[in-house]
């Protein structure tokens, strides 16, 4: 038995086996249909189990990180299909934390909104498995496999509210465009295999360095793969599915998509760009992927922030905000061409900060509304600061973190990205990023203005917070993480620097 191998992939195994067990538990539970009583639905049993599974996965990832995968005998046996290095483990940790928090949110949300069906939890867990595989994939085949495992689950989660036309429509759109993007990615992978004779990323790079191949095929393949990945991180102009899908999906699924799917996509984007296409010609500022990523970053930040400012629905605003954050992260991705470790570390730190802040913001939005009195528009939140100070306070905390106000996690995320951009000599990009975060502050603070400085118009509906131990505990965990990352950013940044891929 290769203990080292099993130990090193233990985060993945824990989540996968946990998912299978949850699936069985769900099948054998007695809940068939949507329940009237909130305490007796499948969520009461499964939410906690899912959270435990995923948090255990996170703990295992952290443990393996600290032991060091290079010390475990056999940890590289699965390479290049699955590469277990600190990079993978960092993302596995982020993914598990994001998934765990999302399942806690679901534990409160699904019963409250009468869509309490147990499939949610296994789907979420298997999606997380796919995300971890995606982050670990060192071969385009496993990459595609992970992408599909992750995406199929998420398509189903998006359409989870079966009765709602909007949810179904969102799911359908996401599925169609997702398949389109996956096809592009797969086509790119096929072409690159045709050009280089390799499917593993390191082999592709070696073949590209050696030269003497069909340059046309390679360039088209690079185009297709970048577009396929840009779809998953919802970069403009490949973002159009995002607002619809995010708004139509039940909020816990939205938060899962916003953090887990995005983290995994960024992980694989970094790996593809830096490992497969990392040789000087393709990572050249003149004619390689960096100017493309930089342009995508500028478009993504600007377009998303401009549109987000005009939204009337808070959830849709958060959807656009998550697109905008992808733009900020893309700036970090661009910097990796010059600052290898620091650039990656800024991306990873940002993703961690973004994960807890975004989950928190969506969770606070869930907590703000109960069935029949949901928090949809800004007006619904009027006077919340007066009626429910605690709920409003945590909501403010997460929004301030997303806006990048010190001393929250989000501030340091932005700080490190901007620092990287300046260090890499990308001054215009850093200026655009700063201008955009000013734009962003506008719509985040608008929520605060409504919560603290408005009263609901007489007779107008307003949000009544729900009561849920699950949601509350998720918010407390996320809030602690946001504050801790803001107060002690250096430690986690060092962790991220050590996790960076070798050049």
């Amino acid at each position: 038995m290769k203990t080292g191998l099993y130990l090193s992939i233990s985060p993945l195994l824990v989540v996968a086996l946990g998912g299978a067990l949850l699936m069985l538990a769900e099948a054998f539970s007695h809940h068939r249909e949507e329940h009237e009583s909130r305490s007796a639905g499948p969520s009461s049993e499964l939410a906690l189990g899912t959270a435990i599974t995923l948090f255990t996965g996170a703990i295992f990832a952290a443990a393996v990180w600290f032991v060091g995968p290079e010390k475990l005998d056999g940890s590289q046996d699965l390479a290049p299909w699955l590469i277990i290095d600190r990079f993978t483990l960092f993302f596995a940790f982020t993914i598990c934390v994001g998934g765990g928090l999302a399942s806690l949110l679901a534990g409160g949300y699904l019963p409250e909104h009468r869509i309490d069906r147990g499939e949610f939890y296994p789907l979420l867990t298997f999606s997380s498995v796919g995300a971890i595989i995606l982050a670990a994939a060192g071969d385009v085949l496993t990459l595609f496999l992970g992408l599909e495992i992750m995406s199929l689950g998420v398509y189903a989660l998006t359409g989870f509210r079966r009765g709602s036309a909007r949810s179904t429509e969102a799911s359908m759109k996401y599925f169609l465009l997702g398949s389109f993007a996956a096809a592009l990615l797969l086509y790119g992978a096929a072409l690159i295999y045709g050009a280089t004779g390799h499917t593993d990323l390191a082999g592709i790079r070696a073949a590209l360095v050696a030269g003497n191949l069909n340059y046309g095929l390679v360039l088209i393949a690079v185009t297709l793969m970048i577009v396929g990945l840009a779809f998953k991180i919802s970069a403009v102009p490949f973002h159009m599915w995002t607002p619809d899908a995010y708004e139509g999906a039940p909020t816990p699924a939205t938060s899962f998509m916003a953090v887990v799917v995005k983290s995994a996509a960024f992980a694989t984007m970094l790996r593809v760009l830096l490992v497969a296409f990392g040789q000087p010609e393709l990572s050249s500022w003149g004619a390689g992927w960096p100017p493309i990523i930089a342009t995508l970053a500028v478009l993504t930040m600007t377009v998303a922030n401009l549109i987000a400012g005009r939204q009337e629905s808070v959830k849709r605003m958060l959807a656009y905000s998550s697109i905008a954050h992808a733009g900020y992260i893309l700036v970090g991705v661009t910097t990796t061409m010059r600052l290898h470790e620091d650039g990656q570390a800024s991306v990873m730190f940002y993703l961690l900060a973004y994960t807890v802040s975004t989950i928190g913001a969506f969770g606070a939005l869930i907590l703000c509304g109960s069935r029949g009195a949901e928090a949809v528009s800004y007006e619904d939140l009027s006077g919340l600061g007066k009626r429910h100070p605690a709920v409003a306070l945590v909501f403010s905390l997460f929004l301030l973190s997303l806006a990048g106000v010190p001393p929250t996690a989000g501030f340091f995320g932005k700080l490190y990205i901007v620092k990287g951009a300046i260090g890499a000599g990308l001054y215009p990009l850093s200026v655009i990023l700063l201008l955009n975060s000013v734009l962003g502050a506008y719509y985040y603070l608008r929520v605060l203005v409504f919560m603290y400085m408005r009263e609901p118009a007489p007779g107008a509906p307003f949000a009544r917070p729900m009561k849920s131990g699950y949601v509350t505990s998720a918010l407390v965990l996320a809030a602690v993480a946001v504050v801790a990352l803001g107060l002690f950013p250096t430690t986690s940044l060092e962790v991220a620097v050590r996790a960076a891929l070798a050049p």
Partner: protein
Amino acid sequence: MATYVPLLLLFLVGAVITGALFTLSSILGPKNPTPEKMMPYECGSESTGGRFVKPSVKFYLTAILFVVFDIEVVLMYPWAIQFRTLGWGGMATMGSFVSLLVVALIYVWKKGALEWET
């Protein structure tokens, strides 16, 4: 490229002949349509409803379950051929694969996907 020219030519000739036959028959053939003649042919029995009928979703479910187990069997063939070389390691690997599918089978069973009448 030159090697493919005869093939291309063949495609071309095939397309032209087929197209020509259909076009000519529709132009030259006598037409005398009656309502009975325009009805879909169903082995002589009276046809009911339009041409497009939505089959029950259960067909799809059964079909997809079949595909899953079909692929399982496809994977088992090479393993069975190499059974001796792979030895116990192969047995364990295939065992875990099959048991995963068993879990899935239990799930669909409990969920009632195998019951036709519900």
